[in-house]
């Protein structure tokens, strides 16, 4: 069967259409062009397209929630400017172009292709695109290598002609990592890995797959599923982010409790650097051969080279999956419960705790109820929780759960977790609530585009922190944001919301949403950036890390020295110095 599989997998590539994704995706917002939120003529929100569970549905409570939360009004529109931004002319390195032509590797210097790869999804980037503002610097050309050897050739040519390379995977960076350094005077070439999207082989004896690093998360998962396997690595961006990007930023998946984070999943990495190719000589599950060289590449954020191929652990698709949710009277109780679950090491594949604001947010996304009966049941549930159990609707929080495994074990596991929850005052609140919680993470970025249509800017950021500081950090960061907004003249109460998204033995990952109505502000993006900066300082002062999985990019460079010490920075510098002395991989992330 494995041979057959190999054949079906390799015929996928389309050599003539280099950027099929570019065609079906928005150029100035998140995700697919056909999927977006809008307020229809009746004033009801709906989600267009057919791709998601919410697609084609109307969401009757979203408008109220939106207007009440932000003091926004559907009358105050701020639609994107539709003329594409002015693109600076390419600075081409003729000799490089000549040599590249000779290799037959496809490339382009069309303005559209270049701008598409000049940014990630930071607020300021998307805002600039919507406003039709000019990017100071964009890549001068784009190349589409088809395999590892193509990459080797490109890197050799780049070194020979002193051309700057910026690897580009899924383009979902939120750290300004894809931004071209404005001071870069050399020709900048965006190295788009999207054509390297094959599973090269699959080894069922050792449960590993060897995959090209340009593959997008959902494709990888779909292809593996066809043969009965999965990686289980599901970052929230998995629809669009690439394997190489995960490695380069130390990504984390929702189900890491079962499958591990990217660094646990990776068995072997092949990467091309200006010094040559780096890889290990075996696929032993663990080695003691000095510091793990994988860890120079994991999190290198495109500063050392391009990841071309990765051998990754795979698992058989779980027999049974079950969502669940637990309502707690207060955030404190929820955190205590998650801590206990982590202590007993019985965390389900995913366990997340949403704060009260996010709980209401989730509820605002409930589609229109089709029958009176469902309506009645919903009302009854609400009555039970708020009236009979005495939960304050403005305090209660919900934990969403996802269990995986064989049916019996899942049910057993479920009971164990619900029993622990009960000791912290938690009440089981059904599968539906749980599933909706996870849905929120996939549509949140679409919702940001909706907000931006109505003068609301929004962003998310994350950190990791020891257990005993979780509550204080959440509270202080929220308060800092509110205070900073006030001091900077934001005229409406900002939305600050957080959730605990990952649990570890000694701490947790916390994810913040932050949004505000910017009407009356001269430069909303600048204000936003100042507040986010202050929020990050607050996180660091409260024992949080610089990043749990988004990375550093250029957005958080200034704190690297404090985060990893001078010697630490020196070590990274010396690696860069050896591997890439000419700074060919010149995106200037991290250091």
């Amino acid at each position: 069967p494995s041979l057959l599989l190999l054949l079906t997998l390799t015929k996928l590539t389309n050599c003539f259409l280099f950027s099929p994704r570019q065609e079906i995706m928005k150029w100035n917002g998140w995700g697919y062009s056909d999927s977006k939120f809008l307020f229809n003529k009746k004033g009801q929100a709906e989600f267009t397209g057919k791709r998601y569970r919410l697609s084609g549905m109307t969401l009757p409570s979203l408008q109220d929630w939106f207007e009440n939360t932000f003091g926004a009004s559907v009358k105050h529109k701020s639609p994107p400017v539709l003329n594409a931004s002015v693109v600076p002319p390419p600075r081409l390195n003729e000799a490089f172009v000549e040599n590249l032509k000779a290799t037959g590797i496809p490339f382009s210097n069309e303005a559209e292709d270049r701008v598409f790869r000049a940014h990630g999804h930071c607020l300021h980037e998307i805002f600039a695109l919507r406003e039709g503002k000019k990017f100071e610097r964009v890549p001068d050309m784009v190349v589409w290598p088809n395999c590892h050897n193509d990459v080797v050739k490109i890197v050799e040519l780049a070194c020979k002609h002193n051309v700057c390379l910026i690897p580009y995977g899924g383009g979902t960076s939120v750290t300004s990592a894809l931004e071209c350094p404005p001071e870069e005077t050399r020709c900048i070439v965006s190295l788009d890995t999207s054509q390297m999207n094959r599973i090269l082989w699959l080894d069922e004896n050792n449960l590993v797959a060897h995959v090209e690093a340009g593959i997008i998360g959902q494709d990888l998962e779909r292809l593996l599923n066809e043969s009965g396997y999965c990686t289980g690595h599901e970052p929230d961006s998995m629809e669009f982010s690439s394997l190489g990007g995960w490695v380069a930023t130390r990504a984390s998946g929702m189900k890491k409790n079962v499958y591990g984070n990217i660094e646990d999943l990776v068995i072997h990495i092949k990467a091309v650097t200006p010094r040559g190719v780096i890889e290990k000589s075996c696929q032993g599950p663990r080695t003691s051969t000095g510091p793990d060289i994988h860890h120079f590449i994991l999190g290198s954020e495109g500063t050392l080279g391009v990841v071309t191929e990765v051998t990754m652990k795979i698992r058989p698709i779980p027999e049974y999956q079950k969502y669940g949710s637990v309502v707690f009277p207060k955030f404190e109780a929820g955190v205590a419960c998650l801590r206990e679950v982590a202590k007993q090491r019985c965390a389900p594949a995913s366990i997340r705790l949403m704060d009260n604001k996010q709980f209401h947010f989730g509820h605002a996304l409930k589609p229109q109820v089709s029958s009176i009966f469902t309506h009645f049941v919903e009302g009854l549930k609400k009555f039970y929780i708020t009236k009979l159990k005495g939960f304050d609707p403005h305090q209660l929080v919900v934990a969403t759960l996802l269990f995986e495994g064989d049916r019996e074990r899942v049910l057993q596991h479920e009971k164990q977790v619900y029993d622990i929850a009960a000791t912290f005052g938690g009440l089981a609140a059904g599968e539906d609530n749980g599933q909706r919680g996870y849905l929120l993470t996939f549509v949140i970025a679409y919702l940001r585009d909706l907000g931006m249509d109505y003068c609301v800017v929004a962003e998310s950021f994350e950190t990791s922190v020891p257990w005993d500081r979780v509550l204080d950090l959440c509270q202080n960061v929220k308060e800092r944001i509110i205070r900073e907004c006030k001091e900077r003249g934001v005229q409406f109460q900002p939305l600050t919301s957080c959730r605990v998204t990952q649990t570890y033995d000694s701490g947790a990952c916390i994810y913040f949403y932050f949004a505000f109505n910017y009407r009356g502000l001269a430069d909303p993006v600048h204000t936003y950036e100042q507040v986010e900066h202050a929020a990050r300082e607050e996180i660091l002062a409260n024992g949080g890390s610089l990043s749990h999985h988004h990375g550093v990019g250029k957005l958080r460079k200034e704190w690297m020295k404090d985060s990893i010490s001078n010697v630490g920075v020196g070590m990274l510098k010396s690696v860069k110095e050896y591997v890439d002395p000419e700074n060919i991989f010149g995106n200037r992330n991290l250091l």
Partner: protein
Amino acid sequence: HPHQATQMSNYCLNILVFVTLQQRDPMLKRDCFEDILEERRNSSDLKYALRCYAPVLYKGVTPCKANMLKNIVLQSDQLHYVINQVSQESGEAPDIIQEEASVILEEMAHRLQISTVRCFAFALSKAFKTLFQHVCVNEEGIQRLQQAIQEHPVVLLPSHRSYMDFLLMSYILYTYDLALPVIAAGMDFMGMKFVGEMLRMSGAFFIRRSFGGDKLYWAVFSEYVKTMLRNGFAPIEFFLEGTRSRTCKSLTPKLGLLNIVIEPFFKGEVFDVNLVPVSISYERILEESLYARELLGVPKPKESTSGLLKARRILSEDYGSIHVYFGQPVSVRSLAQGKVNRSTYNLFPRHIPRKPMEETQSFVNDTAYRIVRLQEDNMVLKPWVLMASLLLQNLEGLELSVLTEQTVWLRGLALSYAAFLDWPAPTAKVVSSSLALHRGLACVSGDRVSLVVGEPLGPVTPEEALFNRAVSVLSCASYRNQVLHVFLRPAMLAVAMLHLSDEVYNCFSFLWDMFSNDFILCPGDTVQDFEEACYLLVKTGAVQMPQQDIVMTDIGQPTLSFFNGLLEPFLQGYQVVCRYLCEEASEGLTEKQYIPAVRSFAVKLILAGNLRCYEVLSSDMQKNALAALLRMDAVRKVKNRMISHINQTPISPSLSLVAVAEDLYRDGLTPSYIR
């Protein structure tokens, strides 16, 4: 052009100083006062005591029962850690230590009860109306406080001049329907069985005066305070000065409790802590002559209920009015911005007690000084304070008309130095009513105003006469001391100019250093204070600063000589101490022997007619002088024994303590004495 450049820089300096003055002193714009007794005189006290009391709390927390609070403390990780540590060190079972902790907490904890507070509200209304003419409060400050209480944990930091202070504070907060504070009180109150319990039920918690190395006690105590702060159950109140100031000068702040209440901010347990300086000024202090006697070595009477009953006779006297000024809340977060890196707390478990880092220590120290200065700034000064300053420079007495005239002059000077004066009527009237209120201290006979010396019955020895005179001088000095913070910096400059006109800054800096136990001089602020002094003297025309010189002007003569007279007692006091240490002190002098020995040395000098300064007899001054000499390494302590080596202490290449002391020597003491 160099000349222009200096002028320019002088000009810039002035602007800079002015700006910093304004920053330090937001009180250039001060709130108005409201007399809270007025309503009490017009409506029922009983109704007032029984009225609905529903204060707003920190972020709407539900009030916490005293017992619940104790449980939280006893179950905290912080306390468990120390209990286990102590148990390992002592070999006792953790249960026993836990029991010990519980006993300590029982002894310490408050048991705030609204019924007791109502009793106090009733009784105090009656008492205040008899004792005082007015109790004035700045209502804007109350509003600010109310706002602050809802937003962040609040720490109330009142000045401490009288036992009355904390009753008064609670009384005011009750009157304005604000959350009642929990108050750190010294254990000595517990001596008064009944009263102690009453105070406990009105929100006081009791701490031992000294518990040096007692880890367990410290852990229980600090966790108790922090728990209250973190949860915002009630504002925490304590006295930065640690004890009542017997001299009415602000005392050097104590840092223990301040450290405790600030730490939760550094550890990220609270978003911010608001420190609210409160200045309580009494027109006449209840403990007036008691303090003077205490300073002269008559021991402080032990707190006892019967003593309190005996003190009833004070109820028949008039103590004028009280002004309570609630200052601007000071945000610890804003203060610490850029000074303390909170992330240094990330690498150590928060529940394990740890000595504060150097950075933190100096921050807390700075903060403490800053708060005490804010207290000083908002102290309301009564006309008598100025009159006392003048009378003390004219011990033989003054014509009433001269006194009035000089008071008017001094008022103008004080106002231009931003003093917070309360001047309820035209000066002549104010002078006579002040003299009436303080008739125990000053009397008018014919046209002359002079200090009253209480004449005991029967024959009087010279020592007794001296003692009586000292009591009235020290009582009077406690009023003069209230204005010192306004004049201190320019006065030190004036003294420096008089004695060492070519090295004014060095001399100023020497005085600054020497007096930093006696006055509130923020560590490291020498230059800033010098600039402030220059600025103020130039502003009032007392000096001119052509180029880099400082020159006295003709019109500045009275100001400068007044300033000299103002600091004279302190200069003399320090000289006498130096003289004693050089001439008389034996090698084995212990700290315990020191005060009585200096006192009898000074008594001898006075009786012999060689010294006319009575303030030297104050134990406060003697202690401060010794502390200064120790700090400046003129004297060293060797196993509790003092070794003086004043003669060898170099201050700067051209200055030595001896040289300066010589120069400062006047009034019948010849310079050769100290050599």
